[in-house]
């Protein structure tokens, strides 16, 4: 019995089909059993009213019916699975359990592939194929439009092969015609590692990288991109990479950085000689200097040390702004870090007639710090405190544990600041109202200090009262609380700043 009418819903098909086929089987068995009975009676073997005849015919009917139903169930089961899959794909209320293509039986018989075709078609690729011919003119227009734009577009299939790239995309074709992306990602945060992560963990994901070059420095035609990648599991084009050409913006930055590096090199040359000979002569002339000469000599040393510090500030700010500032965090003590600048600070305090007291508890836990950078921060804060103190003023440096952090405070009793100044203090080139006329400085010391401290996963805070003085507090993570994260990140601070420190979202400082 054939089905003449296509059911309106796929889910209606199966119960109707089942009903008709079972009726057919039962009818056929009744007819066949009756025919066998008739033959036996006609042949004169049994009479119509003999019990044996009914037993034989009845037994034959039951056995045949059972066998036929079993055969039917086994031959119809793939049809049932296909219908179930189609019902599911059609989005109808599933009245049949969804077949699993990966059973060992399906795998053996090859039926798995048939089911997979249905599932794959449902993911939309079938539609694309069907409609392609209708859309060909539009697709051609779209592709030529994409070739006109400065943005790059690259599409990858699920095997990460490039299935499309437009003209602007930094794509390299090898001799076999195989395409690959030409981008130099920094550190561990690469496109490949992100894609790997998506494959394992995501259905839909998006990621953005900034200032990614396609070639090494000094190579001809080097371009910089902001790269946006989108991932959608199961689609024909699983990953799309959009590249925005930022060469004009970023290459200027590179040149600036080069300029500042070279300028710093030029400035550091004479400073090396000045600081070097002052250090040598301080010893050699100690017996010769008279009156206030040795005090004046100290001022020379202090000034040259400061000059050197300011150049470091400028260089680091430039590197920080371009996300080139590198931190190498290691277990260290506050006292050992301060020790590297202690002589210089004492000299500076003495030269300005200030009293500097520094006291750290002996049992202070170790911190995770980049020694050179944190000593620069301490130097900046103490230098400020000395500068903004009054004649003979006291500057006090101390430390204590506060939760998972060590707080280092620099307290002065100097001129202080009104509230509206405090809020702007950490901006680049900000100089307080009074300092503009009376006190030298570049206005980047606190800016770079904040950047350094926060890239350690710490904070820098300030309390101040106009006319009474200021307290700057640097909180740095206790080493034991971050040791695991640091070890995992090879002593870079990526693990630290990834933890909810929202400020750094647009910065990744560890790119070389």
């Amino acid at each position: 019995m054939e089905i003449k009418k296509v059911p309106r819903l796929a889910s209606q098909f199966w119960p109707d089909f089942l009903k008709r086929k079972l009726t057919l089987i039962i009818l056929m068995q009744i007819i066949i059993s009756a025919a066998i009975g008739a033959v036996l009676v006609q042949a004169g073997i049994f009479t119509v009213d003999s019990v044996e005849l009914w037993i034989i015919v009845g037994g034959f009917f039951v056995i045949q019916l059972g066998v036929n139903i079993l055969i039917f169930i086994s031959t119809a089961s793939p049809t049932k699975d296909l219908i179930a899959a189609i019902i599911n794909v059609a989005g109808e209320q599933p009245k049949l359990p969804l077949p699993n293509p990966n059973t060992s039986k399906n795998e053996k018989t090859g039926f798995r592939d048939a089911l997979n075709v249905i599932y794959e078609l449902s993911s939309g690729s079938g539609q694309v194929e069907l409609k392609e011919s209708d859309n060909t003119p539009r697709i051609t227009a779209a592709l030529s439009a994409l070739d006109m734009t400065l943005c790059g577009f690259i599409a990858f299939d699920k095997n990460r092969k490039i299935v499309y790239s437009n003209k602007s995309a930094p794509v390299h074709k090898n001799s076999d015609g195989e395409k690959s992306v030409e981008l130099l990602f920094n550190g561990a945060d690469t496109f490949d590692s992100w894609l790997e992560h998506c494959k394992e963990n995501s259905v839909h994901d998006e990621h953005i990288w900034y200032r990614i070059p396609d070639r090494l420095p000094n190579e001809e035609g080097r371009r910089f991109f902001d790269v946006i990648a989108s991932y959608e599991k199961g689609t024909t084009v699983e990953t799309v990479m959009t590249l925005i050409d930022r060469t004009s913006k970023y290459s200027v930055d590179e040149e600036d950085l080069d300029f500042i590096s070279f300028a710093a090199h030029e400035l550091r040359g004479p400073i090396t000689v000045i600081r070097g000979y002052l250090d040598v002569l301080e010893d050699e002339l100690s017996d010769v200097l008279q009156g206030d000469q040795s005090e004046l000599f100290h001022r020379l040393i202090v000034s040259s040390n400061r000059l050197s510090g300011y150049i470091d500030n400028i260089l680091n700010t430039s590197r920080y702004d371009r996300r080139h500032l590198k931190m190498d965090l290691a277990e260290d003590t506050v006292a050992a870090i301060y020790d590297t600048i202690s002589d210089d600070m004492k000299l500076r305090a003495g030269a300005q007639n200030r009293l500097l007291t520094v006291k750290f508890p002996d049992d202070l836990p170790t911190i995770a710090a980049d020694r050179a950078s944190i000593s620069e921060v301490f130097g900046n804060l103490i230098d400020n405190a000395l500068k903004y103190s009054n004649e003979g003023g006291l500057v006090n440096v101390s430390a204590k544990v506060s939760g998972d952090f060590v707080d280092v405070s620099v307290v002065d009793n100097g001129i202080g600041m009104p509230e509206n100044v405090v809020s702007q203090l950490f901006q680049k080139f900000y100089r307080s109202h009074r300092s503009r006329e009376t006190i030298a400085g570049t206005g980047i010391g606190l800016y770079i200090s904040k950047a350094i401290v926060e890239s350690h996963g710490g904070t820098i805070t300030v309390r101040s009262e106009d006319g009474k003085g200021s307290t700057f507090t640097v909180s740095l993570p206790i080493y034991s609380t971050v040791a695991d994260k640091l070890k995992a990140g090879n002593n870079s601070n990526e693990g630290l700043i990834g933890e909810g420190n929202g400020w750094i979202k647009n910065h990744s400082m560890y790119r070389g």
Partner: protein
Amino acid sequence: MAIKTILCIEDDRFIGEMYVRSLKKAGYDIDWVVDGNDGLIAARNKPYDVILLDVMLPERCGTDILEALRGKEDLIPNTHVIVLTNFQQDEESQLAMEKHADAYLIKAEITPKKLISVIEKLEDK
């Protein structure tokens, strides 16, 4: 290991003379060359205890010199190398040099007195 002989490869005359003066006073034997090629030749011809190596040099830069001396094979296994520079290198170049050197120092931060204390520390190693 007692340190006695030092090779200073430094093109800035003032800085070179300053190191020579201080290190001589401290009792070391110091040879000073100003260009990279001469530096490499000197380093290969005589077994120095310490080489003070600048990065930005005429003829041949410090990175190349270090690569030639310690890149493929270590031609100077008994020598300490102290890189001294005022030039802020990019991270990769700096790491590459640090790998083959005993110290990597910013000249502006290192006075002759501090340099001598660094050399004395190497002596204890």
